[in-house]
């Protein structure tokens, strides 16, 4: 007679284990959905070409800051031509500014320094500034904003 009770013990354990796992799975799924609620949906950005003006309007040796739909860039004109850089410092995301006297991009947050080709030359930044492609159509300059 006593042997039968062992079987009940196992059955109880199995049913409790199934219920336990079911509950954990349910709570897990729910938590995952809540996490998704907090995480923003990523908007896909299309690659586009934006008109930024005539080359002659940018003084030689100057970099003009622009905000293209939240994307902050600097358009630099030197003897070699015109180049566009993202202002986002590659260290921790502050905005770099152009220093005409030193011919360098400087980030005031942690003193990151980039030369006029965008190369990181001093301070904490681990890589060069992001560069944006410039397209010239006649006198007008267009900058190509890459999809991110």
């Amino acid at each position, binding site marked *: 007679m006593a042997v039968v009770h062992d079987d009940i013990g196992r059955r109880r354990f199995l049913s409790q284990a199934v219920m336990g796992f079911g509950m954990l799975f349910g709570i897990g799924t729910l938590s995952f959905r809540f996490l998704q609620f907090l*995480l*923003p949906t*990523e908007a896909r950005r299309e690659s586009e070409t934006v008109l930024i003006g005539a080359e002659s309007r940018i003084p030689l040796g100057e970099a003009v800051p622009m905000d293209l739909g*939240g994307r902050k860039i600097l358009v630099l004109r030197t003897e070699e031509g015109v180049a566009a850089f993202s202002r986002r410092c590659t260290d921790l995301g*502050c905005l770099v500014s152009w220093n005409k006297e030193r011919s360098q991009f400087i980030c005031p*947050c942690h003193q990151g320094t980039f030369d006029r080709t965008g190369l990181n030359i001093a301070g*904490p*930044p*681990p890589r060069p500034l992001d560069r944006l492609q410039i397209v010239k159509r006649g006198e007008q300059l267009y900058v190509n904003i890459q999809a991110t």
Partner: protein
Amino acid sequence: MASTVSENVKKEQDEKSWVDYIQKDLPQHLDWWPYTLGALPLTLFGLLVGTGLLLTFYYVPSPERAYESVDQITNEIYLGWFVRGLHKTSVDLMILFLFFHVIRVFITRAYRTPGELKWVSGSIVLFVTLAMGFTGYSLIFDNVSYWGMTVVTNMIGTLPVIGTPLLHLLRGGEEVSGVTLLRLYDLHTKLLPVLLGGLVLGHVVIVRLLGFAEVKGSRGFHSFYPEHTLKMGAIAAGLLLLIVNIVMIFPPLLGPPANVQEVASDVSPPWYFSAPFMWITLLPGPLALWSLLGFAGFFVVYPFLDRVLDERGWPMEIVNALVAAAVVCAMAGLMYLDTLM
């Protein structure tokens, strides 16, 4: 009749007063001031909750209104400057006293077995308090706030695997925006205070359960209530007086509003983040981040490291004194460098 009276007496003896639950005699050395440094941050935490609640009645967590509302609190609302000053000064002092408390515990090696959990729980309290400091000064939405938010969330974003999801979770998008401010506001006024309250309670309970560290020459005991409680009350009153004086002499200031198109020339954070701020300025990005994380991890597990080294016969009293002196000097040096920039 006689039996009911004796039953009543017995019942009265069984019924404990609420004081009995926390009543436990305290060792004599707790009268000496370095051993009261833990109670000071606790008092300040209470003051911070009170003044913080008052500030929420006027603060508006939106990028357009945040700075304006802080300005209103500081310059227009009756006693607004005083409430904000109390809040700000209490934070500074709370973190300062926490640092002193850590130094005292570290030098006296009060975390020794069985007290490891006291140290570990306390170090989490310290980190959450620093997180409160960060989320708090972000709410002002001046230049230091805005670029601080950008830099700190970016640092979190560079962590492997969890970095990017955590970055999006904190920012509520790819970039720092109004959603970010609202999230930091929620963290500062809801999630973190509740968490900190729980952690502080846990820390105090753990300290009471595991017992105070033994100190040489401290043999006597005194009661928790009323002796110790009264003394703490007197210290809290003195502290309040000090804070009121500081606020009167140094009323809270407000820098220029955040300019998201240009980084201001000086975006140095409050003094308690000054040393790590200089550290990430001096070292290349990833190295700075990993060394800071390594330092924090090392800090948490230090009691276990102490145990291992102690077993090998290291003179840990001297080692700790040297380590503490080196860390304090390094922090002071970095803070000095920050003032030069």
